[in-house]
């Protein structure tokens, strides 16, 4: 049997069930890999070996009692945006470098109750603002496929960790592409559910009308196990959807024959790297060979996704991040002269440059005299973008296209030009604006680097997305490709 970090979640569960290895041994295997390999990659901000081994012992007791579930004893890493009681939650920021949350996020709580073993908290762009993981207070994460390159962001640590075999599963959040883009750049499967599907309680807010939690794994099947535990109504989140959650694992086995896929012409226009285009087209041909039909669709307003997002997201962020004031928790500047100085310097010193840029953009677009021209206009265009999807879904079941314009770029390549960094999310942002579920799955290589294929579905059609991705992964082995470090 293969090494533990090469196995799927279902294979690990079977091994645990059969007593081939214990949850403690499984946790130790991944903890050792983190110690041995993460110095170069910088995926993990806070490893939690003691808590992991205690949770593993509890999982082993569950197996002994015969009360284990499908995720009991499965190791996982949490993005450091989810509050964890008693364990630091930094959000990648100096502002929260000393913050130990007094409660668990609902996502953390649900996964604990499902029996997962949390190995630690992963690195991320500061307050989830970034597409390369270079804005983290804790330094950049490196891509396991080429350590001179970025893993994408903002959930870069969670993505790179799964790609490097440091954990079989990890959580992430996606506000404009922060799960799908790093999944594409590190060659793994990343899933963003419908807005409202997963509770935002205890997930540090960036842009509340866009933020959604999801996760990373090697395959859609593994994601189905994770989502079955994560998703569901939560009275503690006022935007949580009261919609029944299907068993995503049971729903995986749907035939692809008869599936109608829409190919938006705007996603194949200028700017798409040729090798990425070729890999995307080849992946779409696989769907056709499996019986799916592919038709051209148009999402004309999606070309305005990036400018719409850079009004809506900073506006919401400037409001959400007003809570970090140096008074109740987090960073406080030394020797404040007065209350105003305390606010100004705590925020000026506690936030990094990208976060400050976005707070200022948000403050500006919401300020008197500019609100109508920027914020209201952006909300109207957001409506047009959502209507485009509604029209397309009258015609097709899912939308298919590239996740990013090109594979992973080099560290430092885009840090001097915020706009070029923002354009990383050109194909992913529209799904957030419309609140739709979407995923990225590995679809081949371009110059030795992974390429991601994006699928977008109608609201609450998660099981159809996962089933389509699973069908593709049954017929191909792109998701089995691993960087050398993970072999």
């Amino acid at each position, binding site marked *: 049997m293969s090494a533990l970090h090469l196995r799927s979640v279902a294979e690990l569960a079977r091994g645990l069930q059969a007593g081939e290895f214990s949850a403690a041994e499984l946790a130790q295997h991944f903890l050792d890999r983190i110690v041995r390999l993460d110095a170069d990659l910088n995926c993990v901000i806070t490893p939690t070996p003691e808590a992991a081994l205690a949770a593993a012992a509890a999982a082993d007791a569950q197996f002994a009692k015969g009360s284990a579930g499908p995720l009991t004893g499965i190791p996982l890493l949490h993005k450091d945006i989810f509050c964890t009681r008693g364990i630091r939650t930094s959000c990648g920021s100096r502002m929260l470098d000393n913050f*130990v949350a*007094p409660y668990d996020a609902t996502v953390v709580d649900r996964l604990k109750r499902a029996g997962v073993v949390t190995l630690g908290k992963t690195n991320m762009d500061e307050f989830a603002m970034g597409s390369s993981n270079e804005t983290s207070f804790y330094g950049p994460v490196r891509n396991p496929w080429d350590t001179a390159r970025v893993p994408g962001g903002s959930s870069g640590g969670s993505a790179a960790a799964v790609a490097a075999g440091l954990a079989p599963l990890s959580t992430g959040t996606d506000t404009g592409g922060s799960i799908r883009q790093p999944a594409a750049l590190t060659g793994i499967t990343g899933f963003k559910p419908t*807005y409202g599907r997963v509770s935002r309680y205890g997930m540090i807010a960036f842009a509340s*009308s866009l933020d959604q939690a999801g996760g990373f794994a090697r395959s859609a099947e593994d994601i189905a196990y994770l989502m079955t535990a994560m998703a569901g109504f939560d*009275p503690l989140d*006022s*935007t949580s*959807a*009261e919609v029944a959650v299907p068993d995503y694992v049971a729903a995986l086995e749907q035939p692809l024959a008869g599936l109608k896929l829409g190919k938006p012409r705007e996603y194949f226009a200028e700017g798409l790297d040729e090798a990425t285009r070729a890999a995307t087209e080849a992946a779409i041909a696989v769907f056709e060979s499996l019986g799916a039909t592919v038709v051209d669709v148009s999402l004309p*307003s999606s070309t305005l996704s*990036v*400018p719409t997002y*850079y*009004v809506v997201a900073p506006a919401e962020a*400037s409001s959400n991040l*007003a809570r970090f*004031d*140096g*008074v*109740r*928790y987090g960073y*406080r500047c030394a020797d*404040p*002269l*007065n*209350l*105003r100085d*305390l606010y*100004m*310097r705590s*925020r*000026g*010193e506690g936030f990094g440059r990208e976060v*400050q840029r976005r*707070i*200022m*953009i*948000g*403050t500006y*677009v919401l*300020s008197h005299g500019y609100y109508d*021209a*920027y914020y*209201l*206009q*952006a909300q*109207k*265009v*957001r*409506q*047009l973008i*959502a209507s485009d999807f509604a029209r397309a879904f009258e015609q097709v079941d899912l939308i298919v296209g590239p996740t990013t314009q090109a594979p992973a770029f080099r560290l430092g390549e885009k840090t001097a*030009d*915020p*706009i070029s960094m*923002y354009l990383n999310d050109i194909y992913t942002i529209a799904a957030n*604006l*419309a*609140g*739709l579920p979407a995923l990225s799955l590995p679809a081949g290589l371009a110059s030795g680097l992974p390429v991601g294929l994006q699928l977008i579905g109608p609201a609450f059609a998660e099981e159809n997305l996962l089933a389509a991705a699973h069908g593709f992964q049954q017929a191909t082995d792109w998701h089995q490709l691993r960087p050398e470090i993970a072999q």
Partner: protein
Amino acid sequence: MSLDSDQVHRVAELARLSITDADLPLYASELSAILDMVDQLRAADTQGVVPMAHPLAMVQRLRADDVSECDRREDFIALAPESADGLFLVPQVIE
């Protein structure tokens, strides 16, 4: 739309961010570039379009008006940079 250093200074004041004078010109050029990109929105025809504030067509959920959380004052005060007698401390506000 382009912003100069004075305008950035005013926005930073509104946002309660201390920014050194030396950093203002770079912020001004970066924020101007972002606003230039955002200006593409002006060309969109949005006549009669209802603004979309939120992706879920939902009404605000209400809950029963009863106590659902316990008193965790000590846990929260323990996080404060400075506190005394169960209160958060800040520099003197009233002379």
